[in-house]
């Protein structure tokens, strides 16, 4: 099962409302955070934009591909866009699978592929000015 969403709301401490499969022995949660520097400059926020509709479709396509490739039970992803302050989450991904090895591989592949094709961009940053 794949579920994806894109939001301008805060997603820190996001909880995916999807039941655990009793056969699942591994649950992996990845949170991608905004760092305090960008291109050598201290920043206080990053600004993301996305291609609404296509970004969701691409996330779903990659999620399905990863499920097929590694046989995991499910992958759930939420990506935040707009202005995201330093230290807050830009993305949260949950993978569940029977064994941990498949979960780690699936998570890694999903994030690698996302960074190649999902139409989401960092379009700027808000500098600390210091």
């Amino acid at each position, binding site marked *: 099962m794949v579920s994806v969403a894109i939001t301008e709301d805060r997603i820190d401490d996001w909880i995916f409302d999807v039941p655990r499969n009793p056969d699942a022995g591994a649950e992996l949660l990845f949170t991608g955070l905004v760092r305090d520097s960008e291109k050598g400059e201290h920043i206080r926020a990053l600004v993301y934009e*996305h291609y609404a509709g296509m970004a969701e479709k691409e996330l779903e396509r990659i999620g399905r591909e990863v499920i097929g490739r590694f046989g995991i039970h499910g992958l759930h992803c939420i*990506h935040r866009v707009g202005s995201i302050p330093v230290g807050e989450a830009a993305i949260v991904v949950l993978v569940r699978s029977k064994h941990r090895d498949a979960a780690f591989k699936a998570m890694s592949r999903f994030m690698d592929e996302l960074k190649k094709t*999902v139409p989401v*961009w*960092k379009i700027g940053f808000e500098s600390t000015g210091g």
Partner: protein
Amino acid sequence: MSRRKTITVTVKCFSSARELLARDEFQMDIPEGSTIEVVEQEVRKLSSQLTNMPFMLALNMEYPAEGTLVKEGDELAIIPPVSGG
């Protein structure tokens, strides 16, 4: 001599492509029967800075297969290198 029929498509611009072209989207007339590669060549002609800029062209919210034909009313998008996650 008959002139080749043209079709109109919408091209959306994101990130650096929007900055270069100074617009969110525009309409473009292209010859009927054009492939995605032909349309990409036409898009690159819109600005000298687009000529060698790396980007992918999406068609109706998907990355099209090589040789895909573009049709009247299709939505294209200039996708500069992405940076999500």
